[in-house]
């Protein structure tokens, strides 16, 4: 019965974080998972108790980068692929702020691929939320670096010949100190991953697997947004169970959860040590 039961968490926390003059409904297609990531992000910020003034949202260009337009934080909407260099500048000049980069797969890995690996290498305290929908959605369905082999896009009409990037493996190899993956079906786990990533001191990557049913789903016969979101339920495997599975079993699966952590030192801390050591001389 509904009269007495209270939900486990508040449902209307997002109202205080939305820009008052922004027109809703949002710009994304009906059923697009980016909105689910936005909800998870707002609940993570609310759970951490961060004020609007101590958070900076930086984004590049793309569907996912429309995200800070709706949220009332300090925000920086930058050029294509260059969200991480701008965020590095913000973090370096104001180390007390929480800098969060919202980026897409094409934005972070194709145009900004070089910036991505070097932000990982420095291990600067930035949280990157990479919304991976396996295609360039905003510009018309071109193949991106994460488009799987043999998948169709408007630039690969006979199937993709190339191999695809694994952003989590790339970030872990390049030196990021927290790497996690979630899907939009597992929105509660995604919220937990975003919370841990913001708390972590060092470069944190959260890869949120999302759906682009308008281009990727339509060209690859994956159905509508709902069918794609439900397919993540079948494909997702938690990290603990993935350790017991063979490589052949894991071929078409998405391993979700906390994938990689290191205790590496953070860039701003190291730089401050150099400043302190040479101040008096």
């Amino acid at each position, binding site marked *: *019965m509904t009269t007495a039961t209270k939900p486990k968490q508040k449902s209307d926390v997002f109202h205080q974080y939305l820009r008052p003059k922004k027109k809703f409904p949002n710009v994304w297609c009906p*059923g697009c998972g980016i909105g689910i990531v936005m909800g998870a992000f707002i609940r993570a910020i609310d759970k951490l108790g961060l004020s609007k003034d101590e958070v900076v949202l930086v984004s590049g260009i793309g569907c996912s980068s429309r995200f800070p337009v709706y949220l009332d934080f300090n925000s920086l909407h930058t050029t294509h692929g260059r969200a991480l260099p701008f965020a590095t500048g913000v973090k370096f000049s104001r180390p007390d702020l929480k800098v969060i980069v919202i980026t897409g797969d094409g934005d972070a890995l194709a145009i900004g691929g070089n910036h991505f690996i070097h932000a990982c290498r420095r291990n600067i305290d930035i949280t990157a939320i990479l919304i991976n929908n396996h295609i360039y959605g905003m510009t018309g369905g071109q193949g991106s670096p994460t488009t799987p082999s043999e998948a169709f896009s408007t630039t690969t009409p006979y199937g993709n010949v190339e191999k695809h990037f694994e952003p989590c493996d790339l970030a872990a190899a390049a030196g990021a100190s927290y790497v996690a993956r979630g899907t939009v079906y597992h929105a509660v786990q995604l919220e937990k991953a975003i919370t841990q990533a913001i708390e972590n001191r060092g470069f944190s990557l959260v890869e949120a697997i999302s759906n682009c049913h308008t281009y990727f789903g339509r060209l690859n016969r994956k159905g509508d947004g709902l069918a794609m979101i439900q397919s993540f339920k079948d494909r997702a495997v938690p990290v603990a169970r993935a350790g017991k599975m063979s490589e052949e079993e894991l071929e078409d699966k998405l391993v979700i959860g906390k994938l990689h952590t290191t205790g590496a030192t953070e860039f701003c801390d190291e730089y401050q040590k150099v400043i302190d050591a040479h101040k008096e001389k």
Partner: protein
Amino acid sequence: MSETAQSENTGSKPKAQSKYDYSKGPLPLNINMSWCKACNICIALCPQQVFEPDRDGKPIQARAENCTQCTICWVHCPDLAITSNYK
């Protein structure tokens, strides 16, 4: 006069959620119909089948008494259109 006008109005248009007994409290969920884009995610993911699509495909709480406030619908709503009336 105003009483008769009211009774005529309520009598002429049957409401879609008229089966719900409002003496038990307000409806479990508040759906912002102007933000909703009819993506069907809440209708399909609800474990208690609370929702039914209306003629636009937007959700109506047809079986509101089944709602257990499990948080699944508003956590998965991409348009932030669903909130709980019980906070």
